[in-house]
């Protein structure tokens, strides 16, 4: 029986701080897809998601000595990625992306009614998985950021309630209530295809 040899994140950080560059490369390899996916699900711009993920690793690289190991490495890296993604979202808002959002029906509170026109298949018609995924992305994008962040971290990235709370500096109770709200909103928005 074969056994998989892996190195814990903390051990890799320690190895990197001792001068082992390959240890850092392993960490990049381990987290790069997750981070690109995570940021993409927040900002919906692949190139920007790649850039911000790379920036996340560069910050980890430069500040590795500050990592104390009192929480998980994944929490730390998701925190940095989240802050970068939030900055980007704010920058976009300032640059007038809200005009585009209004054109597509997003309300002042950042919520958007998901309109599925009459020309689209009725609920009885089986939608392809790609079409369903597209509608889910639109519905997630229409969530206010406070709900979207919790939903993406917990349900898409599969972080635990505790780790989601640690990344966002929220209590588990707040994470739960935001998660409930996000799921209820998504259920309403997607009611015609669920």
């Amino acid at each position, binding site marked *: *029986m*074969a*056994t*998989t*040899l*892996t*190195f*814990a994140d903390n*051990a*890799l950080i320690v*190895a990197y701080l001792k001068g*082992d*560059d*390959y*240890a850092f*490369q*392993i960490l*990049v*390899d*381990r987290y*790069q*897809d997750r*981070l*690109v*996916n995570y940021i*993409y*699900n927040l900002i919906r711009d*692949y190139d920007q*998601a*790649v850039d911000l*993920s*790379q920036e996340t*690793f*560069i910050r980890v*690289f*430069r500040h590795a000595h500050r990592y104390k190991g009192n929480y998980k490495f994944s929490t730390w890296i998701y925190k940095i990625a989240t802050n970068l993604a939030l900055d980007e979202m704010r920058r976009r808002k300032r640059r007038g992306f809200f005009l585009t959002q209004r054109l597509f029906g997003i309300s002042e509170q950042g919520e958007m009614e998901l309109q599925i026109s009459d020309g689209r298949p009725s609920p009885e018609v089986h939608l392809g*998985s790609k079409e*369903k*995924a597209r509608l*889910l*992305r639109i519905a*997630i994008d229409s969530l206010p950021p406070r709900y979207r962040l919790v939903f993406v971290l917990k*349900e*898409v*990235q*599969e972080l635990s*309630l505790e780790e989601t709370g640690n990344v966002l500096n929220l209590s588990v109770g707040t994470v*739960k209530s935001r*998660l*409930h709200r996000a*799921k*209820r909103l*998504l*259920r309403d928005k*997607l*009611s015609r295809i*669920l």
Partner: protein
Amino acid sequence: MSCREFEEKLLDEGTNVQEARVLSHLHECSRCRGLYEDLAVLEKMNRSLRQGVKAPPDFYRKIAGSSMSGGDLARLLLGGLASVMLFVTSGALVPTTSAELPSSGEGEIVESRRPDSSRDRVRNRFQREDLHRWVKEDQPVSSSYVELRVEDSSGTPVLVRVPRTVEVRTSNLHYGLYWQRVSH
């Protein structure tokens, strides 16, 4: 169990919840069954969002370029080159091109043993603990495998045998860590 309790439980834990009272309520209440079915579809759709969007192949290059000094980068590249050359000059192995090697970032220990304990115990140790330090250079045992004498994180010496081909690929990241150490 009330509908409210059921809904809270489902929203907290997802549709994998197996508690008898939850399943019992699910069986009895058609309204809650609707919620359960909707959330199950939503969970399935969430899974689709985890796939498809991946980092590009040259993802690491920019990070290395931005973060390392010229010396660091040269050391990294020369280290890889020296490692490959070591194998070429040893004559023990014909280097495999990276295209023929597994693209996975993980390697496997195909055999491990320690003189004073069972193999299974050693395997379990590897699953739980990190290999800590390579204490001896690789000993070629065949063209396919190499044996390494290592220490686990408790300092216990362990002999492991790993596929040789993965060593040649310096971009095979898990073995990259090993690589750098034996080539120095």
